[in-house]
């Protein structure tokens, strides 16, 4: 099994850390993982994306042109990555701020109103965990227990008290994801 994922959105949306938690979760169940971010000069309002690969085999290229799944969190990223989902693959997006919705018919499209849900649970920082939950519903690549272990590993000790909050955000995502 190899899953090749792109997560893309604005800087500040927690794109990179979502990818990191996913990757750490993979490690927790002994998978091979790679996490390759786009990187650039510090400039607010820019876009950020990360390629995450989870695999049972050794991973060769960490840089990809096509993906099994795309998690898309703003319009620029939609423009850039909709085409790069493999036929039959998954596209998950948050419709907030999306003006041109995806149009492909050869892929499976899902949406999660994560901005809204985060607002509703009164924790805008949980946004990315809600998205992660949604994705794990569609692609249960890693077990919840391993996600929690991954969270623990990727958060510094002093933030471990936030884990339960993250867990419930993930659950919101698991519940609220919709097929388009």
């Amino acid at each position, binding site marked *: 099994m190899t899953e090749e994922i792109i997560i893309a959105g604005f800087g500040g949306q927690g794109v990179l850390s979502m990818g990191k938690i996913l990757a750490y979760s993979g490690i927790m169940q002994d998978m091979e993982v790679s996490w390759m971010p786009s990187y650039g*000069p*510090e*400039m*607010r*309002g820019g876009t950020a994306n990360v390629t995450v690969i989870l695999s049972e085999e050794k991973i060769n290229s960490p840089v990809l042109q096509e993906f099994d799944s795309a998690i898309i969190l703003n319009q620029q990223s939609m423009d850039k990555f909709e085409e790069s989902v493999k036929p039959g693959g998954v596209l998950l997006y948050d419709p907030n701020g999306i003006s041109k919705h995806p149009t492909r018919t050869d892929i499976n499209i899902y949406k999660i109103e994560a901005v809204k849900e985060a607002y509703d649970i009164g924790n805008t920082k949980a946004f990315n965990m809600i998205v992660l939950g949604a994705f794990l519903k569609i692609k249960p690549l890693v077990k919840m227990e391993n996600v929690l272990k991954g969270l623990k590993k990727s958060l510094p000790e002093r933030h471990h008290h936030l884990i339960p909050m993250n867990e419930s955000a993930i659950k919101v995502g698991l519940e609220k994801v919709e097929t388009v």
Partner: protein
Amino acid sequence: MAEILTPEEIIKQGEPVFVKTKLMTDNTLSYCPGCGHGVAHRITMEVLEEMGIGDQTIGVAPVGCSVLAYEFMNIDMQQAAHGRAPAVATGIKRLFPEKYVFTYQGDGDLAAIGTAETIHACNRGENIVIIFVNNGIYGMTGGQMAPTTLEGMVSSTSPHGRDVEMMGSPIKMTEMVATLPGVCFATRQAVHKPGLVRKAKKAIRKAFENQKDKKGTSIVEIVSNCNSGWKMTPVDSNIWLEENMLPVFPLGDIKG
């Protein structure tokens, strides 16, 4: 007696009293919201416009967030290697003495890697203007410690606060070069309040007038925020600047 006018009427009938200078291009600034570079750029270009020398000026951009200054300043520009803007400006000015030449540099650029170039251009009294934006950090590369980072200040390479025992004290380049005979004008300004912006612009004007009069090197330091690097909102960063940067880097003319 004047009627109460609507804003639309004022705009139509009134006079525009603040319009973007044509010496700034229409490109969207690449700077973070609230970053002082934008104002520093603008007032520099306003001075050139007011002096009518935009077509006779060659600017030198540094490596730092303002590396892209040439995208925003609507004049001929060169982009110098990190720290070497004063040498590049020297090369230009020596062979084009009739042109106006200025560098625009950050504190990492001017006070760390470019120390020798800064000091020697100043010592030779190169007839140029140096605009030195001191934000106490390496903005472009993600907020590392600069030579001007304050004692105790957190940055990505002083995550536990700058320890002067290990890393040295914040360096005051403008004071240092002011001691050199080649420097005719050295001043420290800021741009986070309207009044200060106007003063800073006057200082820049004076610097270019000095160049016109062949007086030697003028250096205008502008203490500015790097709200991204400092990890604050723009408004908070300006307050922090007042409270923390200015005591160490006090505003005012140092020489000339």
